[in-house]
């Protein structure tokens, strides 16, 4: 059985290499208001006129971080296993179903528990939870099958 939607196995490593610095950058941007000066757009005011703050310049540091995080997660999630076969395909599909379900359970819970501006944070994390839950669930099941019933 061939899954055509998968990337070559080496993308798992590329994904991790991309994800780690992007997560660090994302955390710096989010929690310490960090930004790279050279990513400041000169025409920020013009295109941000629809936003809340008219004086706000657009800086692309957060765009860069999120792009790296999403691409990193996608690469890890969609990388083929070294020995990709029908059982691994089944785990993949199951894990995706799990991830979608848990993602929305978490979102529903957060919708009722988190209010006001904090909910923007919820939506931000929710952009990534589906991929994160998928990756964790998929690898946990793979690992469990590797170590149970040793010979």
């Amino acid at each position: 059985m061939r899954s055509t939607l998968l990337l070559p196995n080496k993308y798992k490593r590329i994904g991790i290499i991309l994800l780690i610095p992007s997560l660090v950058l994302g955390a710096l941007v989010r929690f310490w208001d960090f930004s790279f000066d050279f990513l400041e757009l000169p025409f920020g005011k013009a295109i941000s006129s629809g936003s809340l703050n008219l004086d706000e310049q657009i800086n692309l540091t957060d765009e860069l971080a999120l792009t790296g995080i999403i691409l990193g997660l996608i690469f890890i999630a969609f990388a083929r296993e070294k020995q990709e076969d029908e059982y691994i395909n089944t785990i993949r599909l199951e894990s995706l179903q799990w991830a979608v379900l848990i993602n929305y359970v978490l979102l529903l819970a957060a919708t009722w528990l988190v209010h006001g501006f904090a909910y923007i944070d919820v939506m931000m994390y929710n952009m990534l939870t589906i991929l994160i839950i998928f990756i964790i669930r998929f690898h946990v099941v793979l690992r469990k099958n590797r170590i149970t019933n040793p010979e």
Partner: protein
Amino acid sequence: MKNTIRVERAIHNITQQQLAEQIGVSRQTINAMESNKYVPSTVLALKIAKLFGKKVEEIFLLEDED
């Protein structure tokens, strides 16, 4: 469905890893089949039977709840 893969492996004296390599699947797949967590496709069942020189129904057996 249950199966006798573990028994057949013991008879032929091969490890999960060797069996996996010979039929071109991961070791996890063999492990999952032996612990009845995964029902293989017809293609995979036929490959396993062929390797052990038996009929599919001698290795894969229906259970009451199937």
